[in-house]
């Protein structure tokens, strides 16, 4: 008998106080990796993660974590979760906050010490959580997911409010996790999504808009910007936007052809860049 998939969602409706936010959602995550949860504001991304985490009871349908209904304690104990709120109890020092969650998750002091070292929190450990900057708070909040080893990680915008350096570090840690774990990672940042994830779960209007590989996403147009060293009549085919001339292509594969065509027409190119992320299509 094949093992149960890490995440199984079957025809799920869920929401708050009887009002549906998600409806008819179905997908199955059976392989480790980072699954980017995308969608415009209010689409239901956070509701989806809360339902998977067993915080919200689905109104209908089935949610299973490793074959166990998500409402069961055993299922919730296989999940790690972070939301947009830091969730560190008021008045606690950083290390006390981590210790508190280590206790909640059945961990110990050695887990707290390891995580403080892993995320380079030594200097912050003795400070009260309220004394930290927004970015530092986020780092501490994210540190929680490394306290205990779980099989499924649900991360709701873990890098929001972080400076690029720390955000990159967090993404690297998440990528390490995802080698043998399932990570659902919600993000508003489409470029980050492409950088970190290989698969996407797109939610739009409470419905599943897409579940698949990011590189399989096909868009009607693919726009690149060409920044020339000097003006040239050959650039007249593109639309001017700031220093760039925009060209609508069918796919990224058409970019070399465009460059060849422009250079053969005498255009000296300083820079070519992607002006539209294919994932933006999902938000339209």
């Amino acid at each position, binding site marked *: 008998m094949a093992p149960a998939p890490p995440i199984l969602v079957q025809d799920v409706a869920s929401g*708050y*106080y009887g009002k549906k936010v998600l409806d008819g959602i179905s997908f199955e995550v059976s392989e480790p990796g980072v699954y980017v949860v995308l969608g415009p504001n209010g689409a239901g991304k956070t509701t989806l993660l*809360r339902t998977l*985490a*067993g*915080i*919200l*009871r689905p109104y209908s349908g089935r949610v299973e974590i490793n074959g166990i209904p998500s409402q069961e*304690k*055993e299922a*919730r*104990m296989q*999940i*790690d*979760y*972070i*939301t947009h*709120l*830091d*969730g*560190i*109890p*008021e*008045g*606690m020092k950083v290390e006390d906050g981590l210790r*508190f*969650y280590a*206790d*909640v*998750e*059945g961990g110990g002091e050695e887990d707290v010490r390891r995580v403080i070292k892993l995320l380079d929190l030594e200097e912050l450990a003795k400070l009260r959580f309220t004394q930290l900057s927004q970015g530092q708070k986020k780092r501490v909040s994210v540190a*929680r997911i490394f306290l205990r080893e779980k099989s499924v990680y*649900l991360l709701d915008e873990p890098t929001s409010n972080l400076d690029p350096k720390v955000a990159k570090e967090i993404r690297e840690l998440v990528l390490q996790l995802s080698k043998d774990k399932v990570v659902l990672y919600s993000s508003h940042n489409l470029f980050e999504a492409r950088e970190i994830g290989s698969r996407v779960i797109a939610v739009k209007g409470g419905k599943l808009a897409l579940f698949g590989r990011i590189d399989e996403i096909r868009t009607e147009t693919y726009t690149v910007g060409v920044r020339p060293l000097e003006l040239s009549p050959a650039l007249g085919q593109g639309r001017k936007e700031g220093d760039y001339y925009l060209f609508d292509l069918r796919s990224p594969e058409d970019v070399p052809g465009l460059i060849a065509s422009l250079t053969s027409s005498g255009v000296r190119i300083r820079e070519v860049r992607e002006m539209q992320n294919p994932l933006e299509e999902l938000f339209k």
Partner: protein
Amino acid sequence: MATIQNIDPVFFLGPVVVVLLSAGLVFYWNRRRRLTVWALFLSAVAYFVAIGAKAAFQAVTYVPLDTAVGGNPWALGPYFGLQTVFLEVGLAYLVARYSVSHSILRANDAEGYGISLALWENGVFVAGLAALEYAIYFFTLSGGGTVAQQEYTALIKAAPSLFDKPTAALQLVGYQVLERVSSTLIHFSWGYLCVLAAVFKNRRYLLLALPWGLVDFLAPFGPSFSLPVFEGIIFTLALASVAVALASTRGETRAKSTDFSAPQPDGANLRLLFAVAFRRALNFGKVYVVIGTVLPLLFTVEVAEAGRAAAGAGGPALVDIYPLILPVFVVLGSTGALMVFGSDRDKGVFEYMLAYGVDVSQIFLSTVVATVGLVTLVLGVALVVSVASIAAAGLPLSVTVGELILFYTIPLSYASAMFMSMIGMIWSQLTARRPGVNSPVGIAPIVGIAPVLAALILAESSGPGGILYVAGGASAAMVCAVVLMAWVANKKMQRERFLSNA
């Protein structure tokens, strides 16, 4: 006028030995075997709810029954025995079953649970009551004057053995201690069997535990026997109870030895969690703790002064009022736990706890446990310092004050604080008004004080002696309401109510 004689201080030896014995067993089991804070707490819930229920039941039924049967021990025996069977042993089982089903108690907590039940009965309730009574007698009789004369006249009629010579008194103390040892053995046996019955879902263990409550059947027959014979019978039965409990479960404990030593399932460390909840509640509500502790002391000073003036004028000793008012301050002093609850939800702490496998009932329970801890702290400090202040002020400590403290102040303080805490949590969950004085957390202390004042008004109209029954009834009703609210909330409350508005 008869010469006033004081009770022999040797009587204090009885409660002291029993307290040391009970606490020593708890200490030993905690260090060398297994006795957790959880076992202590849960056994306290089971025991004190049972005692409260017994008191309430007897308040209504004992006098009519005793009159109807003319004090016949064959009628009163089953009356007392069956109450212990169903209330003490039955509740010990129900609490054990609930705790086992929530993975709070395991098979290797069975001994600790039994030892803890014995502690509450002997080391706290019986010995505490006896020590307090002896202290009141001793200090009242030492004081001399009219009050001492009245006390002496009453005691020499009701309990002449208190004025026995030291050798006779010592013998009496010996039998008292033996009786408590027997009680310890019997409580151990039924507590042990109740936990194993719950863990192994074995009805036979429960059926073996229940009949030991019938030992109270013998209580009305006490005067029919000489003291050595009566205590000898009880002690023999107690030894038999332990032998039956251990022999009947030996196969189980051997066969399932792995269950006895199995590690905790990988989940929330609730013992630590609750300890943290108490520490945070203390830290959060320290101003309230100070208010709850200091205000009654100031009140006591005022009462002591007024009492001295009133007593001089032949008026009532106002010190008797003190135990009636104290629960109001205790409720105020224990609001820290509820404040932590409100803050944690706003900060999103509950969202994480739910995601990590903590149940709604455990969130509520941790707040109630922290409240109980604060009540113990506030009440303990206030009582010790206040009673000492009253004694230092030279005001008499009457038996009435002792009874009021034991049967009014203590149960009503715990029950009303728990009630305040649970009402505050539920109300806070059902409304969007969260922070501030106007929020449920801000208003809940008033709600907690209301039943105390209502009980006081009812007590005033219930006549002499009725106050203790009103307090017992009100306390039992509030504890039942807390349990009911927790159960309904756990089953019916939408989880989204635990999410932050932020």
